[in-house]
């Protein structure tokens, strides 16, 4: 099963789609969680996810706003999507009876 931060990275990468790369992912995580994500945490976790076959990364094009330096582009694989879906389902299922869970209509 994925870890919390791994799930966060896969979700952000999937949401950003073709624009998923290091700096953009850090920005999205900071916006969503209100906490900054360090480069160390981001890139070592991406390495781990890539080793597990959950994401693919490659060197993207260099842009002037990056001083002509390349990006590390990220794409979620089908195995990554399945792992994230499994994590999400588990969290929803286990949170269902929690006092803080918002009761949905029709739910027991």
């Amino acid at each position: 099963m994925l870890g919390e931060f791994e799930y966060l990275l896969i979700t952000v990468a999937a949401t950003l789609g073709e624009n998923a790369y290091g700096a953009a992912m850090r920005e999205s995580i900071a916006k969503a969680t209100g906490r900054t994500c360090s480069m160390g945490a981001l890139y070592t976790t991406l390495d781990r996810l890539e080793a597990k076959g959950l994401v693919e990364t490659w060197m993207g094009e260099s842009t002037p706003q990056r001083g002509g330096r390349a990006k590390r582009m990220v794409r979620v694989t089908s195995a990554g999507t399945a792992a994230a879906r499994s994590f999400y389902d588990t969290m929803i299922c286990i949170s269902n009876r929690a006092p803080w869970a918002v009761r949905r209509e029709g739910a027991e």
Partner: protein
Amino acid sequence: MRDIAWKLIEAMALQLTPEEREIVLGDLIETRETGWRGMREVSGLVARRQMQLWSGWRPWLAAPGLALPCSFMLMGFSFAISSELQTHFAYGLQLNLVSAEPAEAVLLLCQVLVLMICAWAAGFTVDSVSRRTLAASAICCFLPCLFCLLRFRHESLSRFCLLFFLFPALAGVCFSRRGGTIKRRWALALALAATVCMAVLAVRGHLWVLNWELIVPAWYLAILPVRPDRMAILRNEGRVS
């Protein structure tokens, strides 16, 4: 101030692979991080990468396994050679080996050969076994040097004679850094020469039993030479420029 901070960031990023360095520096420029924050980000990543490196066996073999003990033992050889040479210098000007006993000259030659071969092989092996932790290996090499330099008491010899071994050792490191490889027959010849010289010294009672560890790097090069495909992998990983 920002220029200085950026120079420091670039210096720290040298610990990363060229690809990762480009990515990280590009991210910092794009997000316009402040100098202090950029330093914190890069140092954090470098620290994590170093910790990952030390989870393998290679840095442990290179630094405390080879650099530390070899440094101690090679300092012993450096001192022995310096003492021998001093006794053979006539009036401090002319090397007077001819007048020495042939057996003594052979012993001195053996010591010099062991020092040269083993120090070079140790430098080469330490760098090629774990290139990215060379700084830690260097610290493991220099700590015993510092320890011995501070405690060195000899009337007629300079304390820096202990450091003779550093010249061939640094030559070995530089050779490895340039991506140099050694042919198996040459590596075998060097390992055999070092072993024979050490055997001669052992027979004459000039060798401490633990000194035999010094031939490990030479035999490592002879048995496991760095293959061209290995060099290609190192280049792809950015470990060899």
